[in-house]
């Protein structure tokens, strides 16, 4: 709620201090949102979420080593991806200072994410053994792809190159999420609830697939249209400063 309202209001606030307030709200809660999402993933990975309503512990389920580490990893990954994407945007806006600013931050975020991931190996080995085993066996190729992509981005950033950083950064994140899926298969909640047992009846699944197909057909072209318009108007340089709060998420 606070993140959404911060975003909705930050452009509209008239006085600088209210604008600052809205921006701080948006910024701070933009950190908390991925962090807590990570803690939830960590709770599931470490087997702290039993089947049933309110069956697990209300606090320790998400407040533990695996959860906190996963939360931190999510924040670092988000920062890393955003910074890498903003380098090119800053370049397009013709602002070399901003470009350097984001390059430095992308590098720091990449190193932080790498460090957290390395620490994660130990924590997961100790407390989320099922996922650890999956990531080091069936999921290993994807983990290697992810690491290679991550190192590639680091090398590019180190040499001050922009080109190729975006797809490599995306590749690093996609590969590790995919690898995670492979590692957790066939469980929704590791070793207690399989995907098959957790799934809805086939009628619903078919309907959801159809809806998803419609979404791909309807929403994606519209999103593409919006993105094209946004990028093109940025190219035309109609506004001088980089637009604060471009539409979209």
């Amino acid at each position, binding site marked *: *709620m*606070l993140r*959404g*309202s911060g*975003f*909705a*209001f930050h*452009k*509209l*606030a*008239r006085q*600088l201090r209210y*604008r600052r307030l809205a921006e701080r709200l948006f*910024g701070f809660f933009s950190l908390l949102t991925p962090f807590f999402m990570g803690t939830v993933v960590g709770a599931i990975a470490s087997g702290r979420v039993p089947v049933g*309503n*309110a069956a697990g512990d*209300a606090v320790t389920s998400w407040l533990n080593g695996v959860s906190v580490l996963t939360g931190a990893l999510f924040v670092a990954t988000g920062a890393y991806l955003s910074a890498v994407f*903003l380098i090119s945007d800053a370049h397009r806006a013709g*602002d070399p200072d*901003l470009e350097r*600013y*984001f390059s430095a931050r992308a590098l720091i975020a990449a190193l932080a994410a790498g460090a957290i991931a390395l620490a994660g190996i130990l924590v997961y080995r100790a407390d989320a053994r099922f996922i650890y085993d999956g990531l080091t066996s069936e999921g290993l190729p994807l983990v290697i792809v992810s690491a290679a992509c991550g190192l590639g981005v680091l090398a590019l950033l180190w040499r001050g190159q922009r080109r190729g950083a975006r797809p490599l950064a995306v590749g690093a994140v996609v590969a590790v999420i995919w690898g995670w899926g492979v590692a957790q298969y066939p469980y929704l909640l590791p070793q207690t609830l399989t995907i098959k047992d957790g799934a*809805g*009846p086939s*009628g*619903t699944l078919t*309907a*959801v697939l159809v*809806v*998803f197909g*419609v*979404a791909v057909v*309807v*929403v994606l072209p*519209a*999103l593409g*249209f*919006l993105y094209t*318009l*946004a990028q093109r*108007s940025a190219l035309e340089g*109609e*506004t001088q*400063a*980089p*637009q*604060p709060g471009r*539409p*979209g998420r």
Partner: protein
Amino acid sequence: MAFTLGFHIILASFGVAFPALMLIANYRGLRHDDPVALDLAQRWSKVAAVLFAVGAVTGTVLSFEFGLLWPAFTGRFGDVFGVAFAIEGIFFFTEAIFIAIYIYGWKRLSGWAHFWTGVPVVISGIGGAFSVVAVNSWMNQPDGFTIASNGQVTDVAPLDAIFNRATSYEVPHMILAAYLVTGFLIASVYAVGMLRGRRDRHHRLGLLIPLTVAAIATPIQFAVGDTAARAIADDQPVKFAAMECVQHTHKDVTEYLGGRCTSSGVKDGIGIPGLDSFLVGFSTDTKVTGLDSVPPSDRPPANTMLHLSFDAMVGICTLLIGLGLWLGWAWWRRRDIPRSPWFLRATAASGVAAVVALECGWIVTEVGRQPWVVYNVMRTEDAVTGASGVWVTFSAVLVLHTALAIATVLILRTMAHRWRTAEIGEAEVPYGPSEPAPPHDPAPPAGSPG
């Protein structure tokens, strides 16, 4: 949850209906080369975007509350009604994307191309309302599944769940309600401005467009609501009995306006003999099912509140029809809005009245269904979470929503003030040959990210 919903229902109404008003102004501006109408459309698009964003925020809270507060409800029946929410997701994203294109498209697209980017917003607003209200209809008239002997929900048919018996009257009733609330609320803002002496064309047009839309929608809403009430007498007789406080099943039932509901019928109300039966079946001989048709544990609570909410909704709708007729009469005679200051006062009050009617209608459908969350299938007490600490989250939600409401009102007031004090000259005309600095973002902060 009730609090979030009661809050969200107002914002959602704007999301459904406001884009249509904005496009009508846009159409007028392009068709008649009317810069004031175009300017209104541009302002309204910004207001619509703010309300849409806040609506998205409360909507997100709601989607979490479904899982957190109603685990048994979503766990057991999510397969049945969830698809409607998935469809709503598509409409939501489509609406969000095209609102963004529309807002950023001022000046960047040609006039008519820009107008057409607004059309998907209107369509997806209606589609989104359809999907969400279909779920509520389903709670009133559950369909599209069977319950096996072991209690498992089987034979799920999502389409049958979406197009249940109540969808055909509940969905149009809510969409029209959205147009009523938005139309009267926007008109009331301009009516207040005119009462304060701002009689420029901006205010006249800003009052006329929404008020005309609402005035056309109101009588239709009355007819749809009447059909809905008759359908409820058939589909959910106990809810209807509670709304009208009919204790025993009998013929020639008296219709009471106002009053308290007691175990021996309505007290202190104005009774019209036979009218209730007549309204249900067009004959005073029609038998109306009473509350005694089900055991006390299956009857809704707070019958006086239900009865008064229903009466308030119908009463307000009747008064709003009168307001529309007043406008129509003056327009027919003199091509102008009525001169009496009482017309402006009535219009100024109509916005709040429409919101009250909306909330009353929502109370009638939700409280009237109790003790069921899924009518005749699942009791509310079986659906709600057993988790402790709900009061803590409720308090947090309450505080956050209050803050959000205050911030929204402040922001909208600031925007209005800024527009009022700004010179309305060439720079404010959205389409034009010369392209001065875009009207939004008067002073973007220097690039200081972080």
